[in-house]
C-alpha cells in the first residue's frame, strides 16, 4: 500500500474521511516514510486530526517526517500558470483563468488534481496522502483531466491534462482509498464510486475501508432477555441491534480493512493517532 506515491482518501460526508487520511499519514511516517498530507478542499478536518493549527498553502511539519499542506485554489492556479504552462504575463492571465475557472468547473478541479500529482512526483516525499472531497464530488475531480483534455484543442493545457490522466491511471503511482461507515447511504455511495472508478479506469482502488465498526459483543439474545431492565440491558441491546445492522451493510461493502468506533474519545488528534494503529499495510 505504501509503495505508491499518491493515496487519495474519499468517502461520503460524515464517514471519518479526514480522520482516516490523517491516520494513514501518521502511520506511514511511523514506518519511516517522508509523508505529505494534503487537504484538497476544506482544511479544517485534516488540521484538527494532525494538530497543525491553521493550515494554508505553505507546508507545516507537525511531526518529523510528516508535513501537511492545504490546496488553496487561487495559489494553485498561479502555480499552475507559472510553473506548468510557463505563462509570462501572470496578472492578466490569472484573471482570464479565474473567469474560465468560474465558468468551466473542470479547470479548477484539474488544477487541484495537478497540484497533488506534482507534489507526488517531488523527491522530498515518499508518499502523498490526500484528504479528498466526499464521494459525491470526487468523480468530477478525477474525471477533470480527461474532461479538459477533450474540451481544449492541442496546446500546453491539453498536454498537461493528458499527463495528469496518465499519472492517475497508473496503478503504481496513484490509488484511491474508499471509506464508508456501515450504514445504508455511505455504503451505497462507496459501491457506486468503486464501480465508476473501475469502469472508467480513472484510478486504481487501493483499499475499501469500513469505519466506526462495533466489536462483536459475543452475547446471545437469550442471555440479554434474562438481564433486568436498566442501563446494562439497554446498552447491550443497542449494541446488538446496531451491530446486526452493521453486519448486513459490511457484507454489502466487502471492506478490506475495518476501523473501530472509538468510544468516548474527545479530540480529533486522539482519534487519528489511535486509528493509525489499525492500518494493515501489506
Amino acid at each position, binding site marked *: 500500500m505504501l509503495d505508491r506515491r499518491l493515496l487519495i482518501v474519499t468517502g461520503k460526508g460524515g464517514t471519518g474521511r479526514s480522520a482516516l487520511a490523517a491516520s494513514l499519514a501518521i502511520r506511514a511516517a511511523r514506518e519511516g516514510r517522508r509523508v505529505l498530507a494534503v487537504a484538497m478542499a476544506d482544511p479544517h478536518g485534516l488540521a484538527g486530526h494532525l494538530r497543525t493549527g491553521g493550515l494554508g498553502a505553505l507546508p507545516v511539519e507537525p511531526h518529523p517526517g510528516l508535513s501537511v499542506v492545504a490546496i488553496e485554489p487561487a495559489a494553485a492556479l498561479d502555480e499552475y500558470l507559472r510553473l506548468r504552462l510557463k505563462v509570462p504575463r501572470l496578472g492578466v*492571465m490569472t484573471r482570464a483563468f479565474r473567469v474560465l475557472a468560474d465558468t468551466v468547473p473542470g479547470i479548477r478541479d484539474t488544477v487541484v488534481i495537478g497540484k497533488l500529482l506534482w507534489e507526488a512526483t517531488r523527491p522530498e516525499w515518499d508518499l502523498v496522502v490526500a484528504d479528498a472531497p466526499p464521494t459525491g464530488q470526487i468523480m468530477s475531480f478525477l474525471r477533470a483531466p480527461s474532461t479538459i483534455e477533450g474540451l481544449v484543442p492541442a496546446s500546453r493545457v491539453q498536454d498537461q491534462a493528458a499527463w495528469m490522466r496518465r499519472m492517475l491511471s497508473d496503478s503504481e503511482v496513484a490509488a484511491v482509498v474508499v471509506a464508508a461507515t456501515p450504514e445504508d447511504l455511505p455504503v451505497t455511495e462507496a459501491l457506486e464510486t468503486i464501480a465508476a472508478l473501475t469502469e472508467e479506469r480513472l484510478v486504481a482502488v487501493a483499499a475499501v475501508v469500513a469505519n466506526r465498526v462495533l466489536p462483536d459483543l459475543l452475547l446471545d439474545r437469550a442471555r440479554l432477555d434474562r438481564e433486568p431492565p436498566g442501563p446494562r440491558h439497554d446498552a447491550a441491546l443497542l449494541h446488538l441491534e446496531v451491530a446486526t*445492522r452493521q453486519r448486513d451493510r459490511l457484507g454489502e461493502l466487502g471492506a478490506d480493512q475495518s476501523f473501530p468506533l472509538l468510544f468516548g474519545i474527545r479530540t480529533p488528534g486522539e482519534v487519528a493517532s489511535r486509528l493509525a494503529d489499525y492500518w494493515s499495510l501489506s
Partner: protein
Amino acid sequence: MTGVVLVVGSGGVGKTTLSAAIAADIARNGRRVLVLTVDPARSLARALGIHLGNTPSAVPGFPRLDAAMIDASESWEGLVRTHADPATAQRLVANRFFRAVADRFPSGQAYAAAEEMTRHADSDQWDAVVVDTPPSGGGIDVLASPRRIRGLVGGRALRWLTGPAIPGRRALYTVTARPALRLADTVLGGPLLEDVAEFLMDLRVTYDGISKRSRHVESRFKTAATVLVTTADPGPMRETARFFSELPEWASRPRAVVFNRALPAEWWRAGGNGGDLLDANLERWGAEAHRQTEARAELAARYGMIPLVVPWMAEAPTTPAGLADLAGATERLDLKSLGLD
C-alpha cells in the same frame, strides 16, 4: 402564508431523515406539507415513495404529505426558460457549459434547492415546505447562493472578458482581439474564451429576471425557521459553530438545534463492579454518552440553546408513520414551536 423550515447541518448527521420526520409530524397534525429532499437513502426514498424530479408527489398512505427530490439541471432549465426569450433559452440549455454550471458550479445545486423551495412556497399549495439542504457547505451554501448567482449572471466575468461596456452579440467575435485574451488562447490552443464569453452573454439576458427572483428567494430565507442538526463528532460540532457565526447575515437565528444519535446521559458510570461482559459494554457506551453530555453542555453554554435530543437508533424509521413518531417524540419540532403557526 406558507411557512418554510430549513434543515441545515454537516453531512452524515441525519438531516434528510430529520427533514422527512418534521414534515410527517406536521402532516399528521392536520397541515398540508411538502418535504424537498436532496439525496435520500434508499430506505427513506422508499418510505416516502419518491420519484426523482422536481414535481411533488403524494406520499402513499399518508394524507397531506407530499415529497419531491431536487434535480438541479431541471431546476436551472426552468429558470432559464422563465427568464430568457425562447431562442436564447434554447441556446443556453444546449450549451456545453450549461450542465457544468447547473451541476458543478458550487452554487448551482444550492441555488436549485433555494429556487424550488421558493417556487413551491409561493404556490400556496402547502401550509409548510420543509427543505433538506445539500450536504456541501452544511446549508450556508444554499443561503449564500442567490448572491453568488447574481455575480455569475450579472456579467462580472463577462465584463472583464469584453471590457467595461457589454457589447452586442456581433462585437463578441472581436473579444479575443484583445492581447491578453490572444495570449490565453495561445495557451489554451483555441478560442475557448470566446465560447465562454458567448455563453455568459446569453446568460446575462436572464440577469434582470434572476436578479429580482434571487432577492425574493433571500426574503424567504429571512422569514424561514432554521433547524440545525448536529452530532457530538468534531466535524459537525465545527460546522455548528460556523453556522452560528455566519447565519445572521442570511437568516434568523436557528429555532432549534437537534442533537442526533444521542445516548442516555445516565449511562455514564452506571455499571456495577462485576466487570462482566455487560458491565464492560456499558462502560464503553457510558464513555460515549459522557462525551456527548459535554458536547451538549458546550452548545448550550456557547449559544444559549438547549439542544433537542433524538436518540441513537439502530435503524432510521422506514415508514412515514415511523418518521412522524420520531419528530413527534421530540418536543419543539412542531410548527408552533418553530414560529410558523
